[in-house]
């Protein structure tokens, strides 16, 4: 063990260039003769597009859907019963259905000039009434986003259980209406595309800030009617993705078409206003949820009706069902209870499509369920963590199939909770709370828990029947003549440190030093097909594939090594990066040199496959690994201003075997920052006409370094029985639990005032209104 393999917190290989400002993003790419694009976007949320007036002088610099001959609509299909797909035309055709929808594409030598062109285009729009609220969208007589639907529903999914008998035994019943705001994802780097047609290769090259490049390639070739070999997608360094960069954007289609039409490279870089108002929306959920429990703290049944505001289009490849479609199955969370019924609606509105964002569905679900748990605990007068403890899935039940048939692979949920309660020292906070603060603020303690299904595969997604179903993940390895290792995988890093962690897995098997391991990823011309980096799957799936490929190389190395040592293959073994025999050893570098450069020294029966291999990997049971965590927070609420200060934040987390604990911590910190945003700051409001009201970062508020607490992370490591090395996916969890933990703590603080917050973000204004309403109620 050289301290570079699985479990080592080695510094990140990629940091050398990132820390020196030498990363290379789409925005850094300059191609000779490159032109820039700016889009004319719809100023209205819902309107008939009567005409687009392009001044004569601008002919050849402006393109509309009429020009994009031979281009198909983007269409995200699904085989879920009742699902209604949409035709998302790359540029609007007939109608616009959201503010910011692309209407015309303007091209010029610089972006500023392209914006000058865009400013001269006049749109003749006939405004239609807009549906802005997801609940209103379901009422009869609501305007239709897609007339062909007959209503505004993409999908209804349900879990039908009998809750009546359990409910009848309940001592208490609590019903809440819970809402999470629409948010924007805000990776530091927005989307960006450079497209160029290469006549020699008969190939379109698309540099795109993408986390699922192979899927972009498949999608582009379908929409543009190109053979897949004619499309190469290259994601350079990607500055955060969070799900947004898994989507095939109309902008990518437009730029690709334009590059072919003009025979010149073209570029579009999303600006922050486009990002906020037109594209990267996520999260908006509404729940009506009821819990039934006994006085002694037994959760008996849960019933819920959920809505997800899925926006104007069903995006490729995940479709408009991704969030609402899994709400019913994941709502029960970490709890074991006997009866459950739920229904979820994916609703069409005249707002940007809801896209998958770190935690996909789970952040809203966790918010609803964990707030309900606290409300029940308050109702029966029990400490919320004690109520949780009595209802968690127990370790002796593992592996556990829960009420919706989710297969929890391993773990000790009560222990995570116990450690979180102890580490935060809930008792000490209770004492301080009872004493009261000298500055008049109120102390609150909150907890939330979740489990995160990760790296779930074919069996899960086949049921969805979306355009992309993950299967075997593949890795292609090549030992280089100098004894280094090249790894090629089709996943791509948008900040996950794959260059380091994937190398650690290879090092674990082959002993080659990290410095000599080189990761090639993303580029569709160089890497095996992959659905990409999403669903916290890359470490488990690509990591597993890399391990499988490394393992296949071992006998080949031993074969050549044994020959060089004049031993039989059975007499040698791999130790570190050397093949060791009874006497003497040879290095992998020696073996590689012979294979490539001195083949005369090879054994006559050498394995002709040589030192390159492509291997596939799939979990035997591909229902997913389940990492989980307990988040515990203590905070103070200033009831005069509604401002909240987080005083302590503890996470006890079980991600199975940790490949690089430092990287895992980093993933959690980043997720928590986003979770704090969901809890307290982030909100994309719309007016009644569907106009987005936060078009810059002065209106859309995100936490900064001073708002993100110094989180204390405690790890538990229960290896997954399902995956190579016992690794579990952990990429999203940090963003799932904070909104519920923080809201629960605020409610704990405000309970004596009769105040309970059920809407995120829990903004000062909302807190003020709730306190006022409670006072008025008492006064009345």
């Amino acid at each position, binding site marked *: 063990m050289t301290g570079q393999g699985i479990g080592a917190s080695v510094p990140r290989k990629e940091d050398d260039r990132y820390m020196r400002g030498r990363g290379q993003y789409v925005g850094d790419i300059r191609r000779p003769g490159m032109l820039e694009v700016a889009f004319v976007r719809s100023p209205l949320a819902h309107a008939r597009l009567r005409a687009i007036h392009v001044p004569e002088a601008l002919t050849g610099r402006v393109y509309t859907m009429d020009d994009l001959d031979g281009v198909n609509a983007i269409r995200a299909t699904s085989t879920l019963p009742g699902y209604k797909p949409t035709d998302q035309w790359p540029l609007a055709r007939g109608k616009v259905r959201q503010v910011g929808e692309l209407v015309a594409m303007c091209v010029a030598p610089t972006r500023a000039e392209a*914006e000058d062109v865009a400013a001269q285009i006049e749109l003749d729009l006939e405004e239609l009434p807009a549906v802005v609220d997801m609940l209103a969208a379901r009422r009869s007589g609501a305007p239709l986003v897609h007339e062909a639907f007959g209503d505004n529903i993409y999908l209804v999914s349900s879990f039908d259980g009998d809750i009546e008998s359990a409910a009848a035994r309940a001592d208490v019943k609590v019903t809440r209406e819970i809402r999470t705001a629409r948010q924007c994802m805000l990776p530091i780097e927005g989307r960006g595309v450079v497209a160029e047609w290469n006549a020699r290769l008969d190939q379109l090259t698309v540099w795109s800030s993408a986390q699922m490049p192979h899927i972009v390639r498949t999608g582009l070739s379908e929409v543009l009617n190109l053979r897949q070999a004619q499309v190469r997608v290259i994601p350079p360094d990607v500055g955060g993705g969070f799900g947004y960069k898994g989507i095939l954007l109309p902008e990518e289609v437009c730029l690709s078409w334009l590059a072919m039409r003009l025979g010149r490279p073209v570029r579009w870089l999303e600006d922050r206003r486009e990002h906020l108002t037109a594209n990267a929306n996520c999260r908006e959920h509404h729940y009506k949820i009821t819990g039934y429990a006994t006085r002694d703290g037994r959760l008996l049944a849960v019933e819920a009706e959920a809505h997800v505001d899925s926006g104007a289009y069903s995006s490729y490849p995940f479709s408009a069902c991704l969030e609402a479609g899994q709400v019913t199955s994941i709502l029960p969370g970490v709890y074991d209870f006997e009866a459950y019924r739920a229904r979820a609606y994916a609703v069409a509105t005249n707002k940007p499509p809801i896209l998958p964002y770190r935690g996909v569905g789970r952040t809203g679900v966790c918010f609803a369920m964990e707030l309900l748990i606290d409300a029940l605990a308050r109702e029966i007068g029990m400490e919320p963590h004690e109520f949780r403890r009595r209802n968690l899935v127990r370790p002796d039940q593992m592996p556990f199939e829960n009420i919706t048939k989710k297969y929890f692979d391993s773990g000790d949920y009560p222990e995570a909770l116990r450690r979180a309660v102890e580490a935060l020292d809930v008792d000490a906070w209770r004492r301080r709370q009872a004493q009261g603060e000298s500055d008049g603020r109120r102390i609150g303690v909150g907890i939330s828990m979740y489990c995160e299904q990760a790296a779930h595969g074919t069996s899960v997604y086949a049921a969805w029947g979306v355009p992309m179903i993950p299967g075997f993940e593949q890795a292609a390895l090549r030992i280089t003549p100098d004894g280094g290792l090249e790894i090629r995988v089709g996943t791509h890093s948008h900040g996950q440190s794959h260059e380091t962690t994937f190398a650690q897995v290879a090092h674990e098997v082959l002993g080659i030093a990290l410095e000599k391991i080189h990761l090639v990823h993303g580029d569709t011309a160089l890497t095996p097909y992959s659905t990409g980096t999403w669903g916290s799957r890359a470490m488990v799936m690509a990591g597993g594939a890399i391990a499988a490929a490394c393992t296949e190389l071992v006998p080949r190395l031993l074969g050549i090594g044994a020959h060089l040592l004049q031993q039989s293959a059975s007499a040698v073994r791999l130790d570190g990066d050397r093949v060791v025999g009874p006497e003497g050893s040879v290095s992998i570098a020696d073996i590689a040199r012979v294979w490539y450069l001195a083949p005369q020294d090879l054994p006559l029966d050498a394995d002709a496959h040589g030192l390159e291999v492509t291997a596939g990997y799939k979990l035997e049971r591909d229902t997913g690994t389940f990492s989980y965590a307990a988040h515990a927070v203590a905070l103070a609420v200033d009831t005069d201003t509604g401002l909240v200060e987080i005083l302590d934040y503890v996470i006890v987390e079980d991600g199975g075997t940790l490949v690089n604990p430092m990287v895992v911590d980093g993933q959690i910190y980043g997720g928590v920052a986003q979770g704090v945003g969901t809890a307290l700051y982030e909100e994309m409001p719309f007016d009644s006409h569907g106009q987005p009201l936060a078009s810059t970062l002065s209106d859309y*508020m995100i936490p900064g370094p001073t708002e993100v607490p110094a989180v204390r992370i405690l790890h538990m490591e229960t290896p997954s029985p399902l995956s190579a090395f016992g690794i579990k996916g952990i990429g999203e969890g940090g963003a799932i639990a904070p909104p519920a933990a923080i809201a629960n703590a605020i409610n704990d603080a405000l309970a004596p005032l009769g105040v309970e917050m059920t809407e995120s973000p829990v903004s000062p204004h909302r807190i003020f*209104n709730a306190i006022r309403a409670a006072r008025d109620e008492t006064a009345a």
Partner: protein
Amino acid sequence: MKPSSFDYAVPRTLDEAVALLNGDPAAKLIAGGQTLGPMLNLRLVQPTLLIDITRIPELTRIEETGDGIVFGACVTHAAFEDGRVPDPAGGALRRVARGIAYRAVRTRGTIGGSLAHADPAADWLSCLAALGAEVIAYDGHGRRTMPVATLMTGVFETAIREGEILEGVRVPRPSKQARFGYYKICRKTGEFAEAIGAVLFDPERGVHRAVAGATEAPPIVIEDAAAFLQEDGDLDAVKARLGEHGLTDPYSLQLHAVALQRAAMEAWL
């Protein structure tokens, strides 16, 4: 989001700047660019000429007199924060400067730009109104002064006339016993305030001034603050007083009352 095209001039004297400003009706002055930059990018303004006034020596000068200090308009927030310029109010300016935006903004943003832009939530506007400061405007022919308290005439509107440059601001020296309190309510560090309370108690000079800022209108300046602001006083009295000045929204009223009350408590400490 790129600006429309414009010319750029860097005058070296105040008179040169005024001449350029008067020579082109669509010209705009640029100081730190911290406000104008985003407005250009969003194309909210589309000037034909930008006149960069940051290299004009008169605009970065400091002039100390017995009863006050004149700061050139282009003195940056960071210069105050770092103590690179004197502080007539015993550290008050330094403290307020430190709370403006983020360091990167403070490095370039200027006191004159902030006052001329007249964002109701700007810190200088409330702070300097409370301190009884005056601005000096120059139009190429002569100078006139006006109190900061009445500089702002509406949201993003000031009494500075077309063709005038805000040359500097004169901050009077409070007496030794004077106490200044400043409290800003904002949702996160570096964000514009949702409410500002600024209080100057200077009994020796007969000043008991309270300023409620960030009201989406010019700051509310109240000269008999002692009458309704008391240590640990009653918020309702403060609210009633602010209500007389047109604040009606309950949340806004609450925040402004709290900010003023806390500023007052600080001044008493």
